[in-house]
């Protein structure tokens, strides 16, 4: 996260209003201290290492994975806050000089989309995955909008066009991957909705 992005909008990110009872208070990623960021990063990195080992068939990391998920219920919420923070910057860039009206419309559309994808009474994992789908969708909209706008100006060079097309393709891949993961989780059913923020009572939906 760059200093420039962080310093611009410290209070700009609103957290989940429907945050379930018992879940950790919202964290503004831009306002997180260096230590908090490092702790978050360390947890995710450790989890990543363990997941990679476990993916190779090693069962030894499983207890530690369970322990991390159990002891870090804030992890999913922190990631959701990061997603909202990133989302905010996307919308800001998309509306630019278009005025606050469009920004509100876009925000409402994103909120509706998020709700629809997450479904009724979503688990924290489903919420997180829904958030990722919304964010990657937003990224596609931003990139396609810029591409169309630059093309209509007629000033785009071939190299710029190629670069923008590549960026759009990458965004689509991210989006499809996000959808696939949520579909997999849903297909497997409620059995996987354990551990992650398990102490929370979900009152939303």
């Amino acid at each position, binding site marked *: *996260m*760059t200093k*420039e*992005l962080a310093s611009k909008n410290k209070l700009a990110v609103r957290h989940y209003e429907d945050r379930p009872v018992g879940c950790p208070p919202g964290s503004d990623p831009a306002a997180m201290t260096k230590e908090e960021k490092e702790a978050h990063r360390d947890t*995710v990195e450790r*989890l*990543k290492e*363990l*997941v990679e080992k*476990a*993916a190779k*068939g090693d069962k030894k990391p*499983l207890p530690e*994975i*369970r322990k*991390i*998920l159990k002891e870090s219920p804030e*992890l*999913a919420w922190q*990631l959701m806050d*990061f*997603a909202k923070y*990133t989302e905010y*910057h*996307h919308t800001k*860039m998309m509306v630019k000089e278009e005025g606050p009206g469009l920004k509100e419309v876009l925000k409402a559309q994103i909120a509706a989309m998020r709700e629809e994808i997450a479904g009724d009474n979503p688990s924290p*994992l489903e919420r*997180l*995955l829904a*958030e*990722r789908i919304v*964010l*990657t969708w937003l*990224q596609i909209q*931003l*990139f396609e909008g*810029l591409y169309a706008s630059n093309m209509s100006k007629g*000033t785009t060079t071939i190299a*710029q066009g190629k*670069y923008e097309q590549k*960026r759009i393709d*990458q965004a689509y891949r*991210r989006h499809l*991957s*996000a959808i696939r*993961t949520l579909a*997999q*989780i849903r*297909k*497997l*059913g409620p*059995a*996987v*909705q*354990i*551990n*992650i923020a398990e102490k929370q009572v979900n009152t939303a939906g």
Partner: protein
Amino acid sequence: MSPWEKRERGGLYYTRSRKVNGRVVREYVGSGALGELAALTDAQERQRREEEAAAWREERECLEELAILVDELCEDVETVARATLLAAGFRQHNRGEWRRRRDQGTSIKE
């Protein structure tokens, strides 16, 4: 190379250089007021292009920053999702579907 060419009989002549089939071709525009006007037009066009390039660079840098944030986030979310599946007793079969481990009880039908 300066676009103003000094003539032997005195005075300056405005020229434009451009590439045609890989070779630099010099176009002779004019001297005096005509040359000045052409030079001014070219300077404005150059400035416009430079401004556009700077705006493009700025936009690109900003988008790169955002893309890094999204990439990082997507990766982290994927890690948490996979960790949750592994913790719940599933394993990924050939980087594709997730199946319940045999030692975790009945398998999940696709």
